[in-house]
């Protein structure tokens, strides 16, 4: 702390505590609560949209159990399959669901991300199951071990990517806030 304001800070610390009027407190708290208000349904809707976007992008370069979108000259399958079917399935799960949660952490507001964090691991579990069901519905083919590996790594990858995304966003927002100030 600046030396010049040290005496004033001491004065602040020694100042008598006075309770502000209840109406004033209601105003302040009401304003902050209003600014941070959100609906869990809208968070889930946003997550759904982000997953749709990520799925379209990922299926273009990384077919999931034979299901793909378009015909990209670049495919992650060649790289992943070098390690075998099991590893390929695990990495596919991480890419698809992890990508969704990474983007979601970037797109959601802090209070929305905080709510989503509190729902872990149920949200990536649900999203992975829904995705697997949809993939199966459009003709996904694979062994049950691969489906299992895909699910486990999708859940873990989604959870971890979300945490990495949140931390990254926090650090970058602090950096930009400081830079703007």
């Amino acid at each position: 702390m600046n030396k010049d304001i040290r005496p004033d800070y001491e004065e602040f610390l020694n100042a008598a505590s006075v309770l502000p009027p209840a109406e004033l407190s209601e105003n302040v708290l009401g304003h902050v609560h209003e600014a941070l208000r959100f609906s869990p349904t809208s968070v889930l809707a946003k997550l759904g949209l982000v997953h749709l976007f990520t799925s379209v992008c990922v299926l273009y370069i990384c077919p999931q159990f034979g299901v793909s979108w378009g015909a990209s000259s670049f495919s992650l399958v060649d790289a992943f399959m070098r390690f075998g079917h099991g590893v390929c399935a695990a990495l596919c799960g991480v890419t698809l669901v992890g990508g969704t949660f990474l983007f979601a952490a970037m797109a959601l507001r802090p209070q929305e991300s905080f709510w989503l964090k509190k729902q872990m691991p149920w949200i990536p579990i649900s999203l992975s199951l829904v995705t697997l069901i949809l993939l199966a519905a459009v003709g996904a083919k694979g062994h049950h071990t691969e489906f299992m590996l895909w699910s486990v790594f999708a859940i873990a990858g989604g959870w971890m990517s979300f945490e990495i995304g949140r931390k990254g966003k926090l650090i970058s927002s602090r950096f930009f806030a400081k830079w703007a100030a």
Partner: protein
Amino acid sequence: MRTETDEELMNLYIQGEVRAFDELYARHKSKIYGYLLKRLSSKSVADEVFQTTFMKLHQCRAQYLDKEPFLPWLYTIARNALFDHLRKTRSEKTKIDAYQNFSELRNSESTGTHPNAELLEARLAELSASQKSLLTQRYVEGLDFDEIAKRANSNPVAVRQSLSRLTRKLKSLLKGSAS
């Protein structure tokens, strides 16, 4: 009552946990309000600055550095809010004083009762056209600094400084003559 430190609560609040703000507010509202009441004469003004302090805390929360002591940080926000308010009111008061002085001068000139009217007339005649224009725009047309600056292709700070110098000069001249 929560057991986290202020710094931990602040980090939770930045991450979006609204209850963390409630706890920080509950812990420090009385200290901030007591400090502002001590520094400001009016309770309603203290209320306004108190509200501004917490609004600023909310707006600037992303600028809070991890593990930075919270209380000095909150105090700095309260102090800045207090000083902003004092600066604003002082500037308003200066504007009102200058306007009143000039209005009194003009009124007394028009009725011929001001003892320094002739002297003022002489001094005003010595001013350059741009200085006279500046005074007229500010005190006769009632334009603000931004508007005057726009007209003169200048900036509001330079306009305010020029006007301040001019009015000070005229005031001291009148005081000197009266004594």
